[in-house]
């Protein structure tokens, strides 16, 4: 999945929603409850690793509690660390099993005025 956004925060948020698109969540609204979660990632190797590490944390919530977040807000965003407040629903229903977010071809970098990266998911 090729991602492009005007800011790093937007790139990271879009990556979350792009991952859900791959997981093809079924937009379940019945029998779900709203959830709010704080996810903090510290001391990643660099910004590319920060994105992969963050997405793996979000993915973990999908695996263990079928949480699907619809809003992502960053309360701290540094080169190798972040804290995000995420809100959404659970339990969501996913059709595709994304088993891991890989480092394969991931490279967060500037491209003109935008930030961009490739993301490859292990299915």
């Amino acid at each position, binding site marked *: 999945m090729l991602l492009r956004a005007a800011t790093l925060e937007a790139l990271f948020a879009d990556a979350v929603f792009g991952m859900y698109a791959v997981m093809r969540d079924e937009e379940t609204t019945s029998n779900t409850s709203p959830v709010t979660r704080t996810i903090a990632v510290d*001391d*990643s*190797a660099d910004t*590319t*690793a920060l994105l992969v*590490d963050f997405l*793996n944390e979000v993915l*973990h919530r999908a*695996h*263990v509690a*079928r949480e699907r977040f619809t809003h992502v807000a960053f309360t701290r965003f540094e080169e190798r660390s972040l804290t995000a407040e995420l809100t959404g629903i659970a339990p969501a229903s*996913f*059709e*595709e*099993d994304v*088993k*891991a*977010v*890989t*480092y*394969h071809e*991931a490279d967060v970098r500037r491209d003109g005025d935008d930030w961009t990266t490739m993301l*490859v998911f*292990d*299915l």
Partner: protein
Amino acid sequence: MKKSDFEKLDEFLWEIPQTHRGDMRVPARVYATEEMLDSIVRDRSLEQLVNVATLPGIQKYAIAMPDVHEGYGFPIGGVAAVDARDGVVSPGGIGYDINCGVRLLRASTSFSEVEPRLGKLAHSIAREVPSGVGRGGALKLNATDFELVLRDGASRAIEMGYGTADDVAHIESNGKLDGAEPHLVSGAARERGHDQLGTIGSGNHFVEIDRVDTVYDADEASRLGIAFNSLVVQIHTGSRGLGHQVATDSLRVMTKVMAQYGIEVADRELACAPLSSREGQKYLAAMAAAANFAFANRQVITAGIRRAWQREFPDDPVAIVYDVAHNVAKVERYGDADVVVHRKGATRAFPGQPVLIPGSMGTASYLLVGQDASMTQTFGSSCHGAGRMMSRTRARNEINAEELRGRLRKLGIVAEAGSSKGLVEEAPEAYKDIDAVVDVVARAGIAKKVARFVPIAVIKG
């Protein structure tokens, strides 16, 4: 990569010389026919193999089997042996699904007895063995059992009532990798794995009932309890979410510490640490625990298959022929040196050891035994399957599920698939020709053909 980059060493062996790229520490070797090589060079698997040839401490050559295809960092169907004293261990060289592997069972019930009840039997197995996205099983491990499964693998599952004491004698490493340290498996990995023991999962994992359609070596087949037209069952799965999380956790650590050890890799997915380092040792101990979880998983699945089978055929014990890992790292001795053999989509093939090579549904699978040449040529390794040729996305776009179901029906194959998507992704045309792949390892002297199976029922997510 072009074919002109290779030197042809013999009919089935091609070498990319060390001079191909300045950072290669050893040459790279590919087992393939010329026709296969023409196909293999179309993806990036051999560029990945060249990257593997740059790993610190790699010995002799980086090796690709005839089923090689592009993976994350390290190609699937790849083997790398690294010096155990001063080399590295790379989680990417094992893969995310630690100890993904194959178990082969043999039934004493005849094909003619099973045929009229095949649909019912397949359905019964599907009910006993959950499969598909996010499907957990009925078995919820308590804390004590979780620790013991991670430490002791299949034998703990047997102690819990999922098998007989004799079963472990028919599993690689007796169903337990030594050195497992359960406390190194993270809470996140445990959360993912707590209800997954005894489940197949999704993707290319399956349970399959097969009929033996060819016996190549009657003596070996007899030794392994296999006969023409007899029935066998294959189980293909691994350590589920737990193993994936161990791999994810370890890659994160390795990515951070590589610079401390002065290591640079050509691809982040080859992130590694010296085997002797704290991080290297911790990875091996966590990987062993995940591998033990996988051995226990296939053991619990075996118990589910036996329950289903024995409801229909009470007198059939459904014995284990063998169980092999194809995503694992092991310290092994070759000559005077200990090496860490990374096998990612590659099967151990020690002389005399059964080698299980599943094909795709609708084609065939093979039972082989390892031969002496594997010890001198491939660090005791063989191929692991047909090798994917078509991406899952392309398969979903190009293959019609109903047409595929009809085709399988015409072949006499019962398909118990949880989803049409799961079925088309694993269609025969998504894979290379299994017969040609196995021919290469057999004619190269790596493993000897014993028997060929064809599917009669496929159970998958």
